[in-house]
């Protein structure tokens, strides 16, 4: 087939205007001081205890969210695999449905559910149980992040699993494999490409988000995203904010290197 690179022009314009130029501006801010002199101080500022703490907390949230999303996704996907086409479609539809609503609204809804006099505690009390104080804790942030990013884990894994030939599973069974062995030796290895893109799509945004932490953390807990936001909007220190963004980008790139290195050749799965 003849290659037609000019078809990529709209994309190239997009990338140039909204990725490359802003990135260059960020780098320029990151590598200069307020007075405009070259410095590495803004990038290295990530190692200050306050920033490091926020970074580690972000990492904790991101890793926790990714693991829990994986643990939630596989059973769901395995159950969906057995459904007929219509029901599969319906299950996917239900899963995606909340994403049609504004993301801030959904997080605000969680705030109402988790607050001290909220819906969850109301139900617990009616059931004669002790109320939980989840509002403004790390757990609340974790719930919000998982809720928000779960579909991004389920969809690619589902895509990968749905593509697995039923004959392979039957062959494994013929050779005496039980369900667990089938899952471990056939399904899991063959769904790795989907799993990897799921990890990328859940880990990166949960690592860099700040709105969820602001709303569900009650301003008491800070992710590195909150620190960066504060530098831009409150402290009016764009240099420091950009410096921290660049270090965060490097950090994410390094973490991603671990996953992409293992990516199986040729076959890779996409979200839709």
């Amino acid at each position: 087939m003849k290659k037609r690179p000019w078809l990529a022009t709209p994309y190239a314009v997009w990338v140039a205007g909204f990725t490359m130029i802003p990135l260059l501006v960020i780098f320029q801010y990151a590598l200069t001081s307020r007075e405009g002199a070259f410095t590495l101080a803004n990038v290295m500022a990530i190692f200050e205890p306050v920033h490091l703490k926020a970074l580690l907390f972000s990492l904790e949230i991101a890793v926790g969210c990714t693991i829990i999303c994986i643990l939630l996704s596989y059973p769901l996907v395995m159950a969906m695999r057995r459904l007929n086409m219509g029901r599969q479609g319906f299950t996917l539809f239900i899963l995606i449905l909340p994403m049609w609503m504004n993301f801030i609204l959904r997080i605000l809804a969680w705030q109402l559910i988790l607050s001290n006099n909220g819906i969850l505690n109301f139900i617990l009390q009616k059931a004669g149980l002790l109320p939980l104080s989840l509002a403004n804790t790390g757990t609340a942030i974790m719930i919000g992040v998982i809720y928000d990013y779960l579909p991004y884990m389920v969809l690619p894994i589902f895509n990968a699993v749905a593509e697995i030939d039923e004959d392979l599973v039957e062959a494994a069974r013929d050779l005496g494999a039980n369900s667990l062995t089938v899952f471990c030796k056939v399904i899991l290895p063959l769904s790795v490409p989907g799993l990897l893109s799921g990890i990328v799509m859940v880990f990166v945004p949960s690592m860099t988000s700040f709105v969820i932490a602001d709303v569900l953390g009650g301003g008491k807990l800070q992710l590195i995203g909150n620190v960066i936001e504060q530098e831009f909007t409150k402290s009016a220190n764009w240099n420091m904010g950009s410096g921290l963004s660049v270090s965060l980008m490097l950090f994410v790139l390094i973490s991603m290197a671990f996953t992409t290195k293992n990516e199986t050749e040729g076959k890779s799965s996409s979200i839709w």
Partner: protein
Amino acid sequence: MKKRVWAALLAGAIVCASALAGGCAKETESGETLTVFNYGEYLDPEAIEMFTEETGIKILYEEAVTPEDLYTKYKSGAIEYDLLCTSDYMLEKLIQEGELQEIDTSSFEHIGNVGERYFEFSKSFDPENKYTLPYFWGTVGILYNKDKVKGEIDSWDVLFNGDYAGEVIMQNSMRDSYLVALKYLGYSLNTTAPGELKEAQDLLLAQKPDVQAYLVDEVREEMVAENAAVAVIYSGEAYLAHDYNEKLEYAVPKEGSNLWIDAWGVTKYCDNMDAAQKFLDFLCREDVAQMNYEYIYYSTVNDAVVENMSAEEKENGALIPPEEVLADCEVLKQLDQETTDLMNEYWKELKAD
């Protein structure tokens, strides 16, 4: 092949750059248009329509959330605003940086409606009343739930003594948090002494486990929903909260607090001073001030509006702070860069703790 991709990229870059440059172009050059920059929900939209109908001057309206937010957007230069409304210390910063033009309030037809004392208050950031026109004002204090507190609430102490652990809401804004701690310790809220700021920081760090949340816009809603017992709040918000929930009362602590004023200024970008002053004069007019008062429900500087208030409104301390309460109140001043940086560091430390 590769060359063509690069050419496409370059073309894209040029298109985007010129689009950006176009966005920066001055919007006031064509005819009578004013670009107005204000906080959210801080001007009745109907008043804007009225102004355009009466004068034919078109208003482009932009909003910001916090003073810092407003300053950052203004300074980025993406839009050249003609008029802006912001808070005392931010106006001081803008005046110092030469961003504002002098205005002649004495030429305003309706300036008589604006009480003299608000110009006196304004002198702390605009010493000769040359640059700004007062708009709304008030105090910072404690909003409490009558059913949840014991005894009289008249001191900042209730936020720090542990009586209401887990039931305290603080402001998620740096200056507002430190002013509470500084006033409680008996220091000026404009202190630049590192020792005093350190004391305030230690106090806030020790208080953090008792704090339910640091919020800005949600303080009122959380108190109305009775999720907390005491909260730091702006007087105007306190009045609205009381409107929604009768159990909520407002007090300005005896240690003193912050007296805040939001005021209008004309930026250096404005080249239609006549139109800008017409707009400011319009805001002083009784019916317009009344509309804005009813829309915002903060303490108005418009004495004509105050006179028309009901007795109940006039006696409400959240709506019209009594003179004796104001004695120990200070207006926030812009701090020097060193102190600002120190406070930013402390604030980050407090939030990350």
